[in-house]
């Protein structure tokens, strides 16, 4: 049952990930990304990482992606031309070769090295993670909070400026 569910979620994740990078309309891409996040959340659940699965939905799919959608709609972007492959054949070839080679090697390596027998039956409930966060990782946690604050301030400063008169430095660029 779990195996079946895993492949189901995996297929969902991959398929929606593919859709993200192939849609012309950014809104469609964003929605597929949300779907992709849901698939991942399912896989997290299968691995008993309940808390992560929850915030994957709540923060990622809920908050971040909504932000994306807001921005997309705010900018009223027309659908971009999809064959926005990089502008020359040689580059396409490079990318293909790079990805294929990297995939083959890494895939082969993964097949070989990971020991599948060891399953710890670890469960990532909110309490257990909170225990780690507020004890061992308290300082990084606070720093992260500060980081978010800074990001918010920065975002506001940057996006707010209507720039009726662009400064000289901006004009030069």
């Amino acid at each position: 049952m779990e195996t079946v569910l895993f492949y189901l979620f995996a297929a969902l994740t991959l398929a929606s990930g593919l859709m993200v990078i192939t849609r012309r309309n950014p809104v469609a891409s964003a929605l597929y990304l949300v779907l992709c996040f849901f698939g991942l959340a399912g896989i997290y659940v299968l691995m008993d990482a309940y808390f992560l699965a929850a915030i994957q939905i709540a923060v990622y799919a809920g908050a971040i992606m909504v932000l994306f959608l807001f921005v997309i709609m705010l900018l009223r972007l027309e659908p971009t031309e999809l064959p926005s492959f990089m502008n020359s054949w040689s580059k396409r070839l490079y990318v293909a070769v790079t990805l294929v080679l990297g995939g083959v090697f890494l895939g082969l390596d993964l097949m070989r090295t990971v020991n599948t027998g060891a399953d710890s039956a670890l469960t990532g409930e909110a309490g257990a993670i909170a225990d780690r966060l507020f004890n061992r990782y308290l300082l990084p946690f606070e720093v992260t909070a500060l980081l978010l604050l800074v990001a918010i301030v920065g975002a506001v400063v940057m996006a707010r400026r209507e720039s009726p008169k662009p400064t000289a430095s901006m004009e030069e660029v």
Partner: protein
Amino acid sequence: MDLYPLILAFPLIGLLINAVLGRRLGVRGSGAVASVAVLLSFVGAIQAFIKVRHLVALGDGEARLVVRLWEWIHVGGFSADLSLLFDPLSVVMILVVTGVGFLIHVYSIGYMSHDRDYARFFVYLNLFMLAMLLLVLGDNYLVLFVGWEGVGLCSYLLIGFWYDRMFTTKMSNAAAGKKAFIVNRVGDFGFLLALFLIFTNFHSLNFDTVFAAAAHHPAATGVMTAIGLLLLLGATGKSAQLPLFVWLPDAMAGPTPVSALIHAATMVTAGVYMVARSHILYALTPDVLTVVAWVGGLTAIFAATIACTQNDIKKVLAYSTVSQLGYMFLGLGCAAFGGGVFHVVTHAFFKALLFLGAGSVIHAMSDEQDIRRMGGLRHKLPLTFATFLIATLAIAGLPGFSGFFSKDEILAAAFSRQPALWGLGVVTAGLTSFYMFRLMFLTFFGKSRVEPERAAKLKESPPVMTVPLLILALLSIVGGLIGLPPVLGRHLLGGFLAPVFEGLHHIEGFGHAEHLSASKEWLLMGISTVAALGGFLLAWTRVHKVGDKEGLFAKSRNGFYRLLEDKYRVDEVYDLLIVRPLSKLARFCWRVVDELVIDLAVNFSGLGVRLGGELMRLFQNGRIQSYAFFMVLGLVMLLIRVLVQQG
């Protein structure tokens, strides 16, 4: 206060002042600064002379003062100090250099008064004094070489001083300077090679070390011979001997005081000084010494014959200088090192006087130098005439004048060594007398052939020019008294120089030179006097008597005369054999080697770099995705590397 350790500083300060302020000082101020600088050096030289003479009188053999200024080069096993060596030889030289130099500086104030570039002139003169003192006082070959090149540079600068004028119809002053410089380079090349040989064989360039090493552990005969010949080559370049004398006559393009100071009295004697300084090396190779003697003897008669036919007053004096320098080398080659130096001294007096007198004439004649357009000047220029006459008597070697004694000493040495060379010397003495009196008669006697507009402006030079003439005239008369032959008295100069040439006594075959018997001495003196009088009579009959008739300067005479007039066509031969092939080779190097081969390689590598740059430009396209791509590419390569290593 001892001034002699600062002897180099005065001309240096003088030239710095003139270089910065010269134009504001005016010709008198500028000249005064330069002259005072040299005068102070002269005082220093006198002090050094007094000290050294005292040491000589003590007679402990080491009659020398060394002033070590600073360590100049110290690399591995090689070291050279900038230190000044005051021994009898160098003291005699600096006395002459600074003394005559001072008089010529003073004279120049008058001579250059109408020139707008007087400041540059005095800067060059002081620079020359500095280099010449360095040359003479250096206690090793390297410092000597620095001075050697320095005086060469000054010579070049001063020959081309009036760079915007023509020397002859075919040659500009600048070209004359260039010729002097390049011909000197040939000699300097030999000199430099000699220095290399000396260093590799004796591991030092210091005079004492080299001579001591050479005397006790001489190198292979071939090497010693090579050193001697190469040094001689250097000396022939600087002192205008065969085969490198061709530059000196053209050096007359410079202002006349320069000709007097550099191209007659001091610089050209550097070769003589250098050979005298290296006497140990030459004494060890008697064959080379013989070569020196023959080079000197042949140059003497060669140049004297040319001088008999020249019509430019300075050219006559130039060839006369070459000839007299030949005498000096003849003396050196006959192991009469002291005699050679003696002739340097007396020659400096009377030849400087001759040139300055000629300068006075030229100045008075508004820059006319051709003696065919002079004549009868003795009434207009009495002082110049009187001093010029004294100098002529001195150079002709009439008894009592300075030239007589020094020439006689050389001839006596030649007689006891190699009678054939003595013969050359006597003939040259006769020729010298002839061409000098020819010059006298054509310039100062006879009917005036001066162009009217020049004759109107003809007047005696100012005192600033004539007083140096008088002093030099006095020296030309009495200068010989410092070196009387044994039959007449004491040879003061010889006694003074004796400690320098002390080392010769330890070398086989150079013991005390056998003194000629008194009767032979008298005989030799008589013969050279007869030769001088013979030259005078020849000039009297062939020039003065026919002086006013037509045809004296007619072009056609026999072929030999024309050959002499054309200076044996040495310049033409050199041009054909050396200059033209060289310029063809240079043209080949330029057109083929440089423009085709080297430029191609350079352009090709430039093209390669440009193509490489173009290629790299493609990666710097400013697109962030492109940068990201290369980042990923690198990441993948890294991964592959890790995986391959593991597997």
